[in-house]
């Protein structure tokens, strides 16, 4: 399976570059973790001493390869700031981020697919134009604004959902879902716009294909033509965008996590950077990079499921 090998090489190279880049970047940021730990009352002597203790006075590359060595053996070290093992910190946050990401994408898809299907029934028609405007409206809505509007609407005014906070699944599935609906909605309501536009445009292309004509010539009703014949071959760009989004969302939902006080990876990363907690940032970034590459690997696999032509080329040795 040379394809699999290629993917692995890709993963390794990306990881190496991303972590090295992170290391460099966090190192050149002004201020360091010693100042953070010792606080605004520290003496310069103390700071120098702590830097030495933490090994921050050694050359950057030496430290990087040290980190890389232990990271390869599965040890991402302990946070300078909290002393918490980095792996543990990430694993604690990951379920939240994953759930947020999955629910947000499901919501986005749940809106995007029907809207796209309905709007290609009559391109340029009333529904199409209204849905396009709605999409651009949500696109223009900053999520920090949308989030607070949703909170006021759904939890303060209608008293339907909790305003903030996260309830783990272990404390009841419904409570868990309740706590995630608003944040996912905030992301999903913005995300669907892009997905809808992409799917709509691909659907329009597909609908010009002869096999759609043939399907109609078989006497299939419009909805059947759309769902069974047009949707699947039109979903490749959608899937690609989805893959990229998912990658971005693992660490990129900071604002939503902040507003809804969700303990996600984004806030962990943000805190890590503000604290100059190199070890934590490094581990998190590496993790996000792995997540990104792996998810896009899965997306590639999904292509094969959706499109037998890809399967054909790839899996027949």
């Amino acid at each position, binding site marked *: 399976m040379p394809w699999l090998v290629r993917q692995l090489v*890709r993963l390794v*190279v*990306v990881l190496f*570059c*991303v972590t090295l*880049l*992170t290391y460099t*970047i*966090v190192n*050149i*940021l*002004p201020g360091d973790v010693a100042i953070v730990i010792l606080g605004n009352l520290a003496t310069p002597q103390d700071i120098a001493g702590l830097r030495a203790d933490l090994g921050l006075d050694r050359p950057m590359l030496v430290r990087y390869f040290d980190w890389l060595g232990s990271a390869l053996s599965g040890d991402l070290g302990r946070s300078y700031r909290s002393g918490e093992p980095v792996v543990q910190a990430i694993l604690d946050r990951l379920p939240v981020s994953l759930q947020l990401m999955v629910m947000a994408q499901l919501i986005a898809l749940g809106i995007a697919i029907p809207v796209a299907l309905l709007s290609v029934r009559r*391109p*340029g028609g009333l529904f199409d134009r209204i849905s*396009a*405007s709605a999409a*651009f*409206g949500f*696109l*223009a*809505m*900053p*999520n*920090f*604004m949308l989030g*607070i*509007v949703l909170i*006021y609407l759904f939890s303060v005014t209608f008293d339907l959902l909790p305003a903030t906070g996260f309830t783990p699944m272990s404390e009841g599935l419904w409570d868990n879902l309740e706590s995630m609906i608003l944040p996912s909605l905030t992301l999903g309501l913005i995300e669907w716009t892009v997905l809808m536009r992409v799917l709509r445009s691909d659907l*329009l292309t597909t609908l*010009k294909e002869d096999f759609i004509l043939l399907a109609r010539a078989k006497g299939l009703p419009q909805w059947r033509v759309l769902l069974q014949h047009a949707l699947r071959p039109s979903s490749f760009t959608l899937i690609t965008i989805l893959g*990229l989004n998912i*990658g*971005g969302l693992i*660490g*990129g939902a*900071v*604002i939503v996590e902040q507003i809804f006080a969700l303990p996600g990876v*984004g806030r962990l*990363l*943000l805190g890590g*950077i503000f604290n100059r907690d190199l070890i934590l*940032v490094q581990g*998190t*970034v590496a993790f*996000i*990079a792995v997540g*990104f*590459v792996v998810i896009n690997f899965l997306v590639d696999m999904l292509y094969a499921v959706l499109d037998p032509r890809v399967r054909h080329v790839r899996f027949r040795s």
Partner: protein
Amino acid sequence: MSASAAKVAAIAATGPRRRWRWALALPLGWLLLVVFLAITADWIGLPDPSAQELILRRKPPSAEFLLGTDNLGRDMLSRVIYGARTSLIVGICAPFLGFLVGGAIGMSAGYFRGKVDLLAVGFIDILLAFPSLVLALTFTAYLGQSLFNVTLALGILSIPAAARVSRANTLAWANRDFVLAARTVGASDWRILTREILPNLLPPMFAFWLVAISVIIVAEGALSFLGLGIPAPQPSWGGMIADGREALDVAPHTALIPAAVMFATVLSLNFVGDMVRNMVDPRRSAL
């Protein structure tokens, strides 16, 4: 031949163009207005956008302050117009920067294929896998917050998308016979890239760029929210929304006015972008 049926259908799809014409006038007019005001802001007698009158903070729209005042008692109209300048500078320049770099990368990847492609795709992968937050924070923390740095950071973030678009389009165009024809007369790679492929790449890139502008304008707002946007007191739409958000119930206009302006602009950009995309649809230009 039956291909003709497809072609006719394609012409048909451009059919309601006359209806489009007035539908296009509105968004185009709005964009022109915004750009005009942003450029001439200094000369149209607006009050200083950073002049404060704290006593008059969060006043609703009135004859004196047409759009009311913000949280520090500054004239919203002036700030919205000066904010247009900031938001447009960031919105236009950042993706432009991204397109310059990403476009070049994507073009080389799509044209040369093979190892160049592998390198370019790897580079894009790295940029994508690298959390954009870290990048934005780094820029603003290390280089300082300024219009230029925010633009640069957002520009870098738009490289992967630009590279993807240009690579995909280059792949499509580089296989066309006219590229082969250029090579049969002995044109160099550089000449083919710049004279044969680039002109065909520009329209789809332009359409995409229009959409990217709206995305970046919103993204600048997110940076402002995290405190990483354009430094105060220079107004930007995103920053104004972020500032106004906390008084959503007592002075909703402080958030809603910039939000409405941003909405109208994003809507217009996308409409115009759609039009450009329709006009340059290869299916139609092949007619």
